[in-house]
């Protein structure tokens, strides 16, 4: 089924008008892996992340589908705001009711402090707020801060992310947070990527640890890999896969996503003379 969806989406985009930047080199959270680089959307750019899919398969055959359409806007130099509406559908196996719904409304602001130089990595900070909107959302608003770092070496770029939740621990709908498989008290990880610029393709690997939000859960270790490619100047496609190595639900997951970069003339001031 996942393959069918991926192929359908690929066919859909193959028929879209193609039209811009080299966005495949600027990775985003979950696109294709969890750990991202320290660069936000360009000033005045809008990035529409269309139908980014994630499928988790837990032991025993329980599936969780996630779709998180997002829009990011380069609101200021080196600063983006992003709004996401994650939707989850959990098939929890024989005898258990299926659950589907919005798992919150995610608003984030990311600011990059500097561009990488020979002596300094690129550094950024992101603040996230997840509002309790939707049937599978947490019972109260939760927030987190993430520090991001990118350093380039000749063979590859390395990215380090460290995320910490702030405020009281929210009670998660569903059992053990299964509806929000990525909700964490803290998360820390590293990704390495290598670009193939003449093909406009980026290959990436990651490893990260996180403390799930559910009470009493152990620290989870995860690994993932993905590919991100520039389909046309405006469209980026990505696909990834990974595995949760520890914890009670050592699941596999696959992701697929597309992003469309554009801008709106009314949002771009041009001096009169």
């Amino acid at each position, binding site marked *: 089924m996942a393959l069918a969806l991926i192929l359908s989406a690929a066919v859909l985009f193959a028929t879209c008008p193609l039209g811009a930047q080299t966005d495949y080199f600027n990775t985003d959270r979950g696109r294709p892996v969890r750990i991202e680089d320290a660069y936000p959307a360009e000033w005045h750019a809008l990035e529409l992340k269309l139908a980014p899919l994630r499928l988790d398969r837990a032991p025993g055959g329980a599936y969780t589908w996630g779709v998180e359409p997002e829009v990011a806007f380069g609101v200021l130099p080196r600063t983006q705001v992003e709004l996401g509406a994650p939707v989850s559908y959990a098939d929890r196996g024989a005898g258990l009711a299926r659950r589907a719904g919005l798992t919150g409304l995610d608003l984030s602001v990311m600011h990059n402090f500097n561009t990488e130089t020979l002596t*300094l990595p690129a550094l950024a900070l992101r603040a996230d707020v997840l509002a309790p909107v939707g049937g599978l959302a947490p019972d109260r608003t939760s927030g987190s801060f993430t520090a991001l770092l990118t350093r380039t*070496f000749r063979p590859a770029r390395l990215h380090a992310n460290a995320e910490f939740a702030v405020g009281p621990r929210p009670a998660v709908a569903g059992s053990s947070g299964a509806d929000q498989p990525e909700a964490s008290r803290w998360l820390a990880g590293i990704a390495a990527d290598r670009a193939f610029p003449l093909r406009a393709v980026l290959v990436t690997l990651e490893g990260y640890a996180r403390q799930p939000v559910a009470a009493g859960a152990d620290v989870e270790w995860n690994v993932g890999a993905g590919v991100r490619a520039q389909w046309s100047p405006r469209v980026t496609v990505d696909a990834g896969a990974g595995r949760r190595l520890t914890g009670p639900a050592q699941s596999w997951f696959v992701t697929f996503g597309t992003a469309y970069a554009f801008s709106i003339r009314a949002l771009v001031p041009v001096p009169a003379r």
Partner: protein
Amino acid sequence: MSASGRTVLGMRRGAACLALVTIGLAVPMLTARAQWSTVHEQFYLPASHNWAFRDRYPSADRMFNAFDYGHAILYEELLRHPGAPPDRLERVQYGFITGRLLVSPPRVPLAEAAIEVDYARLVPEAKAMFDWAHLLHRQIYDVWADDRIPADGKDARVAELLRYYKSRPDLAFSSSPKSMDLMEGAQYSLAFRRRYPKFNGLIWGYHWLQVGLYDALLAGLSPDERQANVTAAVARFWQMLDGAPERMPRLMPMTAAVAPRFAARYPEAAIIFDNLHSMHDVVSDILASADVPPARKRAEILLAARRYRDDSTQVISREEWRGMGDMVGVNNMGGVAVGFLPALPVPTVPVGSTHAEAMERAMSQPAPRPESP
């Protein structure tokens, strides 16, 4: 030790490794001479003409993607292998670019930071200046490739693009013409063209086509004529590569000489592109010159970048700028881009010459008449 104890120990070791890697990535921050750069990217001006050139002239558009590779690999090679034999660029890279890349160019614009890895971190400010000017280049092609925009509408669009370009004074090249002495009169000047004549000729061939295509578009009175002119200009570029470096431009192609229609109609844009192309040569010279030690290269490039952005350093009049091509001879710059003869124009100066030498030569003997169809 119990299984759970081993798991906890493993997690702690993993966490310690993660912390060490993160510290390793961040350690350079602690060095005394850290370079803090806040240069940032900005999206191109959204408009109905966006990507019109790519849609209507895909072959020429794709060549620009290959040109981006040529500039990027040049800077990276010069920076990473300063004392390497010229063959690395003159034979290996030149052969790859002309034999494979230009023949089958990339289908989308390149992420140059993935090619010029060290250069992009040495001077992200200069890289951003080039990127910003290249966006202007491409957007003006789009305006003139969009057949839906009437001629007077095109002028208004180009004027708007110029205002948008100049809204980034930290990135925008000056629209005041600069003396060639800024490019050819420094301690490091000519280092690149003398050591790498073929690759230098290739870069000048790029610049000839980049400005020449404007005249190809402006001179065409119908879409068919514009297609024919663009095809002819691209063919002329290939003709220059045959027998390099002898048949390549011998002096930096100047917009007023190669694309006189464009320079007359949009002098500000033409001057910006001449300053852009001069700065490309200056960066090549700084990176190639042994007189500039590695520790000084960033400072010299940033100094040159400031001089090409300001409206005061070595500024000449527009009349002097327009006359420069006539003085040194457009035949030394690859010739005009529209209405040329089948044979390449005959240059009057040897490979590796300077504008000053060409001027002296022009004053001591009558210049040959520019070609005309």
